């Protein structure tokens, strides 16, 4: 059985087992699934790098009848990042959500939901069928909403409902686009659609799908659901929600614009999308500056970071011919998605441990934590470096690539937006950082074990390594990269 199948099947079987089996054995099944999926993700990446892209026609039915799954560089980069974040979140969840601290309901429900979330993410990263992607993002949304609501507090429920409204409206708009695509071309497979005759309705279809996916990605002005939802969930869930879930709809957007319908991209549309991105960067950062709860600061930072991802659309292809690298902006955006995923998860996991010690995530309660739990503070600092985009992190590599493309393309405004965003990020992340660095005596509190504290540090370290050892991921991303990523839209 190939690794491609295993990354999909293992979390699904794990989720089903975690539902069906009682107590401990259910959790053991979940852990077996976590380890298997992690291993399968690594194996898949290795096989893609060494043997090229595996392609699987499910049920041996070729499109347009059947559905195709395919792993390219973008897929495996996302799948490996997901596997790392999921494993780390699970490692901390084991303690944070144990039955004796949070009650049997959460101890039961967390594991199947997280495994379903994982399966849905992998399914979205691999699928090449527009309708199958719809089912995938619906599974993703339902599992994510379940995780938002899991705490059961009134605010969490309200946040879940608001999230649900945006997610559902978004998936319906996406579905509307899919309906138009099928109506015009009689096909749903991306591979088939690449060679299609453009139809008059394609522009509308792309617009509908884009708006829908923007709503699911929480791009400004559809971001209002994100901070309460990510801020209200338990920390391991927040880590997955913030680091991974928006990336799924973003990857679909990349595929739609660069693979399926590059012919539909007009200058005005590209500028409009990037303008929303720029607004998200500024608005999200300013909002993060005035929050008084650390989790909300981190959540608003996600709003801002998502904005960066959308600057790629007008910049792709900017000045590629002058440069020693191809597809600078496209690669930069994917790097940003990857490093943001790792760093943001590390942040939430670190904050989660602080919260567990202090019982609150108010900024004023954070004093003394750097001394008491130096590894988590260091993890937060390293993640901040990535989020701000300072070297030597994956965030910096990304920022450098996108900014160079912007200047080379003569669209330096987007580069200035990135520069401002980085400064604002430094400002809003400085507040919690300085607070934890303050001296205070916390010897009376029970601290998590060193092994627990090491988990976010490992993730944050991975985000840094992504910057230092960026050539490997860079070459990997070139596997199956659309031509339009180099030539521009």
């Amino acid at each position, binding site marked *: 059985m190939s690794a491609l199948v295993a990354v999909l099947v293992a979390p699904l079987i794990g989720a089903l087992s975690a539902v069906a089996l009682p107590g401990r054995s259910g959790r053991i099944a979940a852990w077996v699934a976590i380890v298997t999926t992690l291993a399968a993700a690594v194996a898949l990446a290795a096989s893609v790098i060494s043997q090229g892209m595996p392609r699987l026609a499910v049920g041996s039915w070729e499109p*347009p*009848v059947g559905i195709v799954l395919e792993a390219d560089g973008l897929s495996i980069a996302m799948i490996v990042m997901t596997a790392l974040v999921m494993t780390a979140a699970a490692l901390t969840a084991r303690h944070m959500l144990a039955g004796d601290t949070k009650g049997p309901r959460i101890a039961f429900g967390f594991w199947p939901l997280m495994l379903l979330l994982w399966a849905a993410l992998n399914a979205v990263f691999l699928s090449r069928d527009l*309708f199958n992607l*719809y*089912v995938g993002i*619906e599974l993703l*949304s*339902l599992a994510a*909403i*379940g995780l938002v*609501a899991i705490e*059961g*507090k*009134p605010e969490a*429920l*309200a946040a*879940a*409902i*608001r999230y*649900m*409204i945006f997610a*559902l*409206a978004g998936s*319906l708009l996406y*579905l*509307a686009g899919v*309906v138009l695509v*099928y*109506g015009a071309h009689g096909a749903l497979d991306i591979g088939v659609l690449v060679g299609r005759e453009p139809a008059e309705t394609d522009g509308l279809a792309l617009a509908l799908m884009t708006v829908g996916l923007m709503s699911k990605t929480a791009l400004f002005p559809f971001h*209002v659901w994100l901070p309460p939802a990510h801020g209200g969930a338990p920390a391991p869930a927040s880590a997955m929600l913030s680091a991974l879930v928006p990336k799924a709809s973003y990857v679909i957007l990349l595929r739609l614009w660069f693979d399926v319908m590059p012919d539909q991209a007009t200058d005005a549309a590209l500028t409009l999308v990037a303008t929303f991105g720029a607004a998200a960067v500024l*608005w999200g950062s300013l*909002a993060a500056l*005035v*929050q008084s709860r650390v989790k909300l600061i981190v959540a608003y930072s996600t709003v801002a970071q998502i904005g960066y991802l959308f600057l790629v659309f007008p910049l792709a292809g900017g000045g590629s011919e002058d440069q020693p690298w191809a597809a600078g902006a496209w690669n930069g955006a994917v790097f940003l998605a990857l490093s943001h995923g790792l760093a943001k998860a590390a942040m939430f996991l670190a904050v989660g441990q602080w919260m567990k010690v202090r019982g609150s995530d108010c900024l004023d309660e954070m004093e003394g934590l750097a001394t008491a739990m130096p590894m988590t503070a260091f993890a937060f600092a390293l993640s901040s470096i990535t989020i701000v985009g300072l070297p030597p992190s994956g965030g910096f590599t990304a920022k450098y690539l996108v900014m160079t493309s912007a200047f080379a393309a003569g669209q330096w405004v987007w580069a200035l937006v990135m520069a401002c965003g980085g400064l604002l990020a430094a400002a809003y992340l400085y507040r919690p950082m300085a607070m934890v660095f303050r001296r205070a005596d916390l010897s009376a509190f029970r601290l998590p074990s060193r092994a627990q504290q090491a988990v976010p540090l490992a993730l944050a370290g991975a985000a840094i390594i992504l910057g230092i050892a960026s050539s490997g991921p860079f070459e990997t991303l070139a596997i199956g990269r659309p031509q339009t990523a180099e030539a521009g839209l």
Partner: protein
Amino acid sequence: MTGPTLYALTGAALVGIGFFGLISAQHLLRRVVAFNLIGSGLFVFLGAAGARSGASDPIPQALIITGIVVALSASALAIGLVVAHARASGRPTLPEEDGEA
């Protein structure tokens, strides 16, 4: 005007009506109802597109059945959330969108 065209236009109208309901309704349960209208409107549109060429096309029909089940799942979770939220807060509406902060 042929049958499929009529149904397609009906579907288009249902999508609009549904989105209006989703935006305008205060009571969350009614919003969930409106969400179902949008979904079924899209399905009708797709079904009409499938029925255009005369012979019935099974692929859209299968997609629609899948879509109906997915919509049901989403509705079930949404309804559950609405009830739980009302029980916790005593209100069937979302708290006022209190800006950003």
